[in-house]
């Protein structure tokens, strides 16, 4: 299991790394006697020096892992006959490109026999795969069945425990539906320990639309003891909520991409953050492009969603994207998103290209009328599951109160 990195990629001595999990590496360090390695478990520890590159610490030695070289695996690492290795070196193919060349082409390029090419392909494929097929029963331990609570038992029940820890969740709705309210609430609920539905880490909130609603966040923090009656009060007062919400502003696409590819991974790698909120994805992608530029827009959108997917799966971090909605003019609704609530003729923005990238799609509506709770009143909202691999289509009423978003107990 795991992969041997070529020794040249690791600075500070010939030390190959074996990956054990996202946060642990086994480091083998050559000792004075040749051929003897010393190994130890290495944990990703934030390196407090001034450099921006991710640095990993292991018992006093700093191992810097260079970016590009890691992926260019060395042929020496593979279990192959030297004859094959030298032949493939001669035609300057990397391990990964070999897999993209068809077997006859490879035979022609390298001048190897057919069985040699097959061996070469098998070895390259083995090097590229992470693990052999695992029974799903075993992967139950690997795949976290953890859910991130949204902070309200009624809405959690709708979501079967909350947001999935791996995957992109989209929350769309008209302006004023309460999307940002729910997102802010999740930013706080992520900070609780896991037994209270959190992930025991902070959140990063990437704001592209408005300035970040700091006042509202403060209000929500004050309301936590009221909202989360299940959590002991001493725990709530011990958590320093506002220190663990990292706010990023992205005013254009370039800075959004920069943020998602640089700064957010740093926060995630340091374990400071385990929730990424983007509010909203639609704003920049809808404003920065002309209608004729849709091809370029889709390309950018795919790049962006690829980055989000990567972050989510890499660090097993929930990603919550807030999306705007767009009116539907034609009655043919292929996504089936606006059907169930009758009068509603809106569908999430950004079209199919984005919808294909989303694992869980939620929508929020603002309904007519008022609901009251104690001395407060609110416009009723509805949180609707549009699609998700594990959720039933259905919805719950909700209200936005001073202390946060709460589901309404369904009557009849």
């Amino acid at each position: 299991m795991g992969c041997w990195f070529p020794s040249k990629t690791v600075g500070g001595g010939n030390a190959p790394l074996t990956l054990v999990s996202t946060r642990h590496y086994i480091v083998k360090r050559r000792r004075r006697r040749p051929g003897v390695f010393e190994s130890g478990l290495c944990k990703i520890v934030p390196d407090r020096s001034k450099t921006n590159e991710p640095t990993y610490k292991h018992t006093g030695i700093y191992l810097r892992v260079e970016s590009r070289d890691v992926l260019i695996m060395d042929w020496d690492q593979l279990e192959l006959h030297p004859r094959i290795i030298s032949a493939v070196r001669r035609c300057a193919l990397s391990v990964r490109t070999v897999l993209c060349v068809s077997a006859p082409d490879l035979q022609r390029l390298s001048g190897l026999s057919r069985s040699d090419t097959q061996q070469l392909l098998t070895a390259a494929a083995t090097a590229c795969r992470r693990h052999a097929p695992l029974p799903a029963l075993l992967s139950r331990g690997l795949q976290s069945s953890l859910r991130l609570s949204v902070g309200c038992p009624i809405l959690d029940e709708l979501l079967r425990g909350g947001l999935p820890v791996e995957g992109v969740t989209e929350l769309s709705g008209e302006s004023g539906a309460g999307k940002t309210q729910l997102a802010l609430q999740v930013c706080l609920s992520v900070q609780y320990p896991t037994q209270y539905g959190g992930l025991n880490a902070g959140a990063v909130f990437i704001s592209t639309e408005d300035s970040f609603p700091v006042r509202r966040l403060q209000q929500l923090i004050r309301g936590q003891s009221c909202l989360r009656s299940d959590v002991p009060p001493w725990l709530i007062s011990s958590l320093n909520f506002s220190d663990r919400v990292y706010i990023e502003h992205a005013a254009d696409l370039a800075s959004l991409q920069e943020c998602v590819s640089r700064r957010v991974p740093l926060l995630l790698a340091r374990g400071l953050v385990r929730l990424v909120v983007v509010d909203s994805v639609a704003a920049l992608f809808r404003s920065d492009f002309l209608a004729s530029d849709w091809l370029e827009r889709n390309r950018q959108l795919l790049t962006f969603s690829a980055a989000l997917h990567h972050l989510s799966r890499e660090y097993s971090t929930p990603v919550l994207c807030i999306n705007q909605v767009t009116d539907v003019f034609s009655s043919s609704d292929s996504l089936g998103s606006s059907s169930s609530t009758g009068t509603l003729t809106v569908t999430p923005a950004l079209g199919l290209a984005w919808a294909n990238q989303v694992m869980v799609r939620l929508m929020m509506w603002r309904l007519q009328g008022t609901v009251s709770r104690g001395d407060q009143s609110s416009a009723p909202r509805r949180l609707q599951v549009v699609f998700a691999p594990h959720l039933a289509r259905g919805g719950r009423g909700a209200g936005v109160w001073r202390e946060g978003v709460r589901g309404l107990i369904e009557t009849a």
Partner: protein
Amino acid sequence: MLGNASGEEQMKMQISSCSLSPAVKSRLTAAGFHFLSELRGLSPSHICAEAGVSQQEALQVLQAVRGGASRRGGASGGGGVGGASVGPFPSLTALQLLQEEQSQRSIFSFCSQLDATLGGGLPVGKTTEICGAPGTGKTQLCLQLAVDVQVPVCFGGLGGQVVVVDTEGSFLLQRVQDIAGAVVKHCALLVEDDEQRVAMTTFSVETILSNIFLVMIGTEAMMSLGFSRDSDLSISPQVRCHDYVELLAELHLLPDFLSEHPRARLLVIDSVAFPFRLHFDELSQRTRLLNGLAQQLIAMATSHNVAMVITNQMTTRLRGGQSQLVPALGESWGHAPTIRLLLQWAGTQRLATIFKSPGHPGATVQYQITSDGFRDADQSEQPPSKRPRTHTVQSAAGQRDSNQSAVGQRDSNQSAAGQRDSNQSAAGQRDSNQSAAGQRDSNQSAAGQRHSNQSAAGQRECS
């Protein structure tokens, strides 16, 4: 099983008892290696470095270590990778092929209308593509099939195993457990004879999960170190762009895995579009890779007798000023699957359309996704559609079609059974009964479904 056991024993063997040259053995022991298991997982270069042997000797050592495994692999297809090297298939007459095909069970989907239209379910040994917009139930159908293929033979199932290649990260165990639980419950209700009772003792959610082999593409660490260094706008180009390489690598190795697991009857790739739609600037390269992939899939399906189920996304095509939803990955990919199934929404109804199949008439059927999985649409509970549109007429016609084809199917089953009867008297008889009853079963399941829903708190529809 036996092969595994002998492999385990071999791992406990001492190095001194191996067939290696004495010089190599002494060097290995001097370097501190005593058992073969200690050498497993090492690369030749490390053995070279540690024991001071040449690269070639290190390779010999590793071959000795894996002797047991390679001997087993050698028995089938010379240990070669890819269907192409499995060797020429014997030429068969059309009659033989027909008999072979009819002796093969199909994987039923628990939606009797869909099964009837497909002539009993998804065919084993063929490639089926499921296309649809997000939220139409592609993943649900895949998960349902992954569970259904494991239904014991005495219940009319295949009692097989399944490999699921998940590229989107949408394989959620929670959902598989739901579906598996419903299927187990359904089978428990059907138990009539002792054989079925015995089968039920081992058919549980746990065994279902242990027979699903999961390959997750694009997860886990490894790439975490690949932060982009240059400051161009395209973000970390190497992060997920090599997903497709991972998928290709997996497909290279799957034939070996399938020969080690001869009970595997289904391979699911959910979805093939996801890795191939990102970061492909050069479309000709993509087409080439996809063609190669299609060939591999077809070869694997026929040589290992496995049903291939792949899902595909939809994309919008502008043609003549009109936009149209079409399956992604381009025209040439459309030739790869034998059967193409399109899942879509029409108002509040879910429709499945067969729009490519050599053996079945094009048809549209209704289905629904409940908390238990992929099921027949409940006609009685279906609200009348507000505006009768063309497709509802089509679907009605499609249902009539499918009924006819179901009748035809039963006929052919009987004739197949007649042939088999002469070979194996009792077993064949039961088989044919079951395959004919399979449709009845799934109707019952729909009925049972309605029942359980009433008892549970309302009907939940999953997407």
